């Protein structure tokens, strides 16, 4: 996904660059509005199939249910090899009883965490 956009991007950017120079020079009679600065804003979220934790039913971007009621906690997200994700705290509790992914029942192997 990233490679094509990059390669496709470069000729366009050259194009842009020339427009940019022209723009930066001055607004013209025909183009009275010229961009000087753009403060772009985005919000990020985990790129996951299911964005709520199947264990505590809270959105993965927020602290898990337990951590919300007990302040001062580092709540993070954990991914398994099966590519399912949960709150790390929820999963720690879960695997004490059952070492399988609650969603697909495969053996739970941690692939990475958000920390």
């Amino acid at each position, binding site marked *: 996904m990233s490679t094509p956009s990059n390669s496709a991007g470069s000729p366009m950017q050259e194009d842009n*660059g020339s427009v940019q120079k022209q723009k930066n020079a001055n607004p013209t009679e*025909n183009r009275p*509005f010229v961009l000087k600065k*753009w403060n772009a804003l*985005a919000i990020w979220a985990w790129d996951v199939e299911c964005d709520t934790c199947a264990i505590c039913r809270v959105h993965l971007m927020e602290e898990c249910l337990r951590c919300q009621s007990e302040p001062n906690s580092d709540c993070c997200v954990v991914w398994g090899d099966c590519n399912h994700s949960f709150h790390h705290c929820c999963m720690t509790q879960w695997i004490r009883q059952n070492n399988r992914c609650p969603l697909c029942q495969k053996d739970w192997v941690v692939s990475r965490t958000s920390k």
Partner: protein
Amino acid sequence: MLFDDEWVKAEPIVNALLHQKSVTPAEWQDLFFYVYKITSWVEDGPQRLRDILTREINGYVQEASEKIRKLKSDESLLNGYIKEWNRFYRQSSILPLPFKKLDDNRVKSSEQHFEPIRVVMLDKWNEVIFSKISDSLLIEALRLVKEERDGNIVNADNVIGIRESFVGLNNQFGEELLVYQKTFEKQFIEQTSEYYSKICGKLLSELGVLEYMVYADKKLDEEQQRAQKYLEMSSPSSIRHMEAAVIALVENFEDTILAECSRLIAERDVERLQRLYRLIRRTRTGIDTVLKCIDAHIRTEGLNDMKNNADSLATDPEKYVQQLLIMFDKFSALVREGFCDDARLLTARDKAFRAVVNDSSIFKTEMMNKKGRSFAVESKCAELLANYCDLLLRKTQLSKKLTSEEIDEKLNQVLLVLKYVENKDVFMRFHRAHLSRRLILEMSADQEKEEMMVTKLRECGMPSDAVNKLSRMLQDIELNKDMNASFKKALTGTNNNKSVADSINLKVLNGGAWGRGGSEKIRFSLPRELEDFVPEMEAFYKKQHNGRKLCWMHHWSSGTMVFGTGSGGRFDLEITTFQMAVLFCFNDRANDKISLETLRLATELPDAELMRTLLSLVAYPKMRSQILLCDVPSQNITFRDFTDSTNFYINHNFHLIKNGKPQQRGKVNLIGRLQLSLEANAEKEHESIVALREYRVQEGIVKILKTRKTTTLAQLTMELVEILKPLFIPNRKIIKEQIDWLIENQYMERRPDDINTFVYLA
């Protein structure tokens, strides 16, 4: 060894002691020695010594009795008695010392009952002298007290002596003060009561209530001192004296005195109020009326002040908060100066002030729930407080004018008022929205103050999850600074993108901290000039953070654009991305008119946003000349004037005015309040507040039922209010609705025999 031999030597010393004649230290020591010898070596010594000593004492008391009997008038009787008594009383603690051995032996030979020597002395005195004349002595003592009350100087020692006689002479074990209480104390108290009852009614009508209060205040002080002086304070019933005085002086006229309370409060006559308080404080129930007066005063005064300035206050959060603080200080001063900060009055002040703060009759916000029904009518205070906070923390005229210390002080004042606000959840929501805007638009006056405010909100007990979100937002902004720096570095490093790096600032925020924005997100088509940058930014971010996806929040983004007018003007416009999108439509069509419909097609902005954006470009408040013009004839254009065919075109004569002169260069900020999402759709905002409250109530009820298993409606309501108090005060309606919902969904049920008792269903 013979008893008499020794006693002959001891007797003169004993006699001298009894008659208070001087005894040399040597003699005094000898006496110990003689007593020791007699008690140790003479057979039956102790008994004989006790007998003979008793006889000596008896002889002395008889002598004294003779002297007193000769005195005729009551007054000289009292004087004479006191003289003799004082001597004897002093002796009663000296003479027994050498005979301590007798008292010790007494304990050992317990079959026979002997009193200690001192008791023997006092009993004898009582038997021979005091019991016979105590009645007339008491009458005389009380007469002296009355004299003193009338303002004459009397010999206080006489009264004290009589008290001592009553207390000291009737020391039956286990009922030491009984005789004293029944006689001296009882009559003393009766006399107090009688004395004041007789004169006070008349005094009140003669002096008028205000002067009477001065009198009563003075008399109560005097009586307090008198009691200390004349009464035996170890007697538990001695407090009855003050009670009697208070009844006679104050309680009998309580209504008349309290009738003045409201007027004195209204006139803020602190001195008289203090006096009134000192009097009423001693009564049993009078303070309740004072509390009512204070409560009524604060409520009416507070609301009147608000009502009189309602117009200016509603639009000016600063004035509103200042007004509240002025009132609070005024009421606190009243309680402090007039009522010595009595805890009961402080509570009354808090209660009444809370009512003023939360009053919804003047500044109200109507909360609607999703079904569009009115859900609650609440004070606008929370919202105005949050707006004021924003004014202090943002770069504004106000915050520029104030010093750092002044801002701190004012923020503390906000927190003080916040304590009284019931719908704290509304405050937190508005505060958070303001903070988002300050951070995103980089308008914070001082980052440190932002952090301090978060800490303070935590300290004053705001719910921790809400405060945590605020502090996560602040942390996130810090992370972003680094991210933006490395983004620029990456751009500059690669293929000649320096100009791009200069013109782009990227913020990527943590969805968890800032709200996922799902519902807030507005779809529209980004102008090509901006869209070109998006893949670049996404590629960069992906490289930095694997496993994250970005969601663009264009309704929160903004930028600067250079605007060159046909008449040669050159302006920097600070505008929102939506405004940019509209303005970019005019590039290559600089002299055309573009219809609203075309603009809608080009930008794909939803109608509400499009209207708001266009309105901000054709009718920005407080600006003489506008960026765009439209063919709406009216002077005060509102979005209702717009139709699909309304045409918009560039104002090529756009200019700024500074010091009365038109300017062809300059900077304009057109963002204003556009990005305060709360303003955009207050209704939606209220809906989500209501929805959240409904969840909180459900959660609270379940939590209570889980521990209680069964509970009554009254108890449930009470506990629920306690749990939710830091957020809001649930009203009866919401509680009832949520109970019904929980019953319907089988979380709980009503007990069949009692519909007001609920049972938890696991």
